């Protein structure tokens, strides 16, 4: 889903074409295409937009409009591994706001906010890549950061 955001590979038009081919003939293909592009390159490259637009018979502005609407689609790759901390109500009730400053200060990772990971009886919770973490506290959140920084999931 999120891909290797901290290891942004250089993208090529050929790879975008390849993604487009995979979705040829689908109903409403734009979101799955953008999802794959984001996953492959850690962002939706500016230069990919006209290629996608042309293939789907859309204007560049339309594709841009979609990219900018959704929080998951990044315009530039993250420079550090991303830790997504849940800061919604149920995790706030379990102390998420006490963890946020610790993560914000940590220069090894980039902190992103998400609103709910569906782990609301076990918060505070976080997502790194496709790996979920819950019952976070000041101690184990440090382990999580160390793991994320090394680019390995538990």
């Amino acid at each position, binding site marked *: 889903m999120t891909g290797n955001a901290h290891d942004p590979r250089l993208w090529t038009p050929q790879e975008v074409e390849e993604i487009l081919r995979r979705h040829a003939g689908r109903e409403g293909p734009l979101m799955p295409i953008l999802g794959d592009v984001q996953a492959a390159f850690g962002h939706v490259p500016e230069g990919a937009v006209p290629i996608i637009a042309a293939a789907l018979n859309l204007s560049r502005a339309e594709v841009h409009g*979609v990219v900018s609407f*959704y929080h*998951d689609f990044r315009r530039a790759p993250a420079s550090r591994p991303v830790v997504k901390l849940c800061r919604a109500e*149920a995790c706030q*009730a379990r102390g998420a706001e006490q963890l946020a400053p610790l993560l914000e200060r940590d220069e090894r990772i980039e902190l992103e906010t998400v*609103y709910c990971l569906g782990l*609301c009886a*076990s918060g505070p919770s976080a*997502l790194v890549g496709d790996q979920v973490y819950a*019952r976070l506290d000041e101690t184990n959140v440090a382990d999580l950061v160390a793991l994320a920084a090394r680019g390995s999931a538990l």
Partner: protein
Amino acid sequence: MRIFVPGDAAACAVGADEVARTLERLAAGRGLAIEIVRNGSRGMHEMEPLLEVATPAGRVGYARVAAGQVEAVLDALVEGRDHPACVGLVEEIPFLRRQTRLTFARCGITDPQSLDDYRANGGLEGLARAIEIGPEAAVEEVVASGLRGRGGAGFPTGIKWRTAAAASAPQKYIVCNADEGDSGTFADRMLMEGDPFLIIEGMAIAGLAVGATRGYIYIRSEYPHAIKAMERAAETARRGGLLGPSLLGSTHGFDLEIRVGAGAYVCGEETSLLESLEGRRGEVRAKPPLPALVGLFGRPTIINNVLSLAAVPFILAEGGKAYAEFGMGRSRGTMPIQLAGNVRNGGLFETAFGVTLGELVEDIGGGTLSGRPVRAVQVGGPLGAYFPPSMFHLPFDYESFAEADGLIGHAGIVVFDDSVDMARMARFAMQFCAAESCGKCTPCRIGSVRGTEILDLIVAGDRVDEHLALVEDLCETMKFGSLCALGGFTPYPVLSAIRHFPEDFRREAAPAEGGSNAFVD
């Protein structure tokens, strides 16, 4: 020996994968014949990872097992000794015994990815009966059940289906709303991971009932486990005749695709979700036309929440009447309630409508996890009202909560202890609305930004009376000038916080950091 280690995200987030790997390694090393099943979660999230061992007397549980404990548990098992993590027969745990599980009947019990297991435990009976009685009778069973949409709005599902069934079009669609964005909710997620064929069966019945042959499940990107589980199950369902050109060998065909969201809360709103599926910005559409008549790609479309669709197989198998026998007033059937936040026994509790809020929070939930007094609960997600314990007599049903200026929404209950600052929670509600607004209406887009600023001033103790009056005015404007419930219902948490916890808005200017509340300590 059959050992169950949940594959549910709430278990994996606290080490269940490592537990399963360790168990596998130890069993192989000792030459023990152990079959490991990655079941769904029983919904007792404080106990995860909850390892279960099948015995002749029933399944015996071991709670909060860490990978480092697996060896000791295994030794105890082999030697027939006790282990401190043992919680006895899982079915006898009061939290489970007190439930009425119709929708979650199989979740946590079966192997969620085994279609044979699904069939052996009552699965596919609903679809078989729908095929037998035909589309019109199937719709009428759902009408008779009194089922109302579990996604939040509570619209009668059967009536929606009748509308789509009556429309004629070359193509109709079934869309399953699995965007589950509300904080404090995870029932959709648990079901996708713990009993995915149930959702597929519900969608297939819906397709048969209204004459739709294609479907989509729209899952939020924050749910990587659920996405994988549904993709795998759909593949198996296709091979097993639960999807495809001939459902269970009948003349009815239905197939579906999994689609993944991209982090927009508003895309849970049904028309925004349809826009997103079509590949556009998730901007809310004005209604009418109803999606049941003009929905996905302009075609008649049933869009239902995961839990609504998952209730349907029971309704078809046992009859709408059997379902309607549970519940109270105009809230029929059962509701998978989610206890979340600062609560001791958090998790999934399915029960008939009518249980009181106090029973849920105090008796079943066991009060707060922190051990401090409960001060507030938010019911129904980020657009739901905050209630103090003085309102714990409220019975859990659509009407009672509406009368109390609240909503049950997707039935999430978030518990807060007495360290909560309700002025900050009110501010958060406005900030959330500002962050997630689709931008179509001014009261929502601009109002929420202004609301956040004004609440900041109130928190800082600046001209509180004047600013509170301004917030209330703004809330009125948002209520009546918003196209959808994001802008329209954000006033619920804000106004309820002001009404029930006025003291939090009239504090001396407090230091700006930390979440704790100086006036309590």
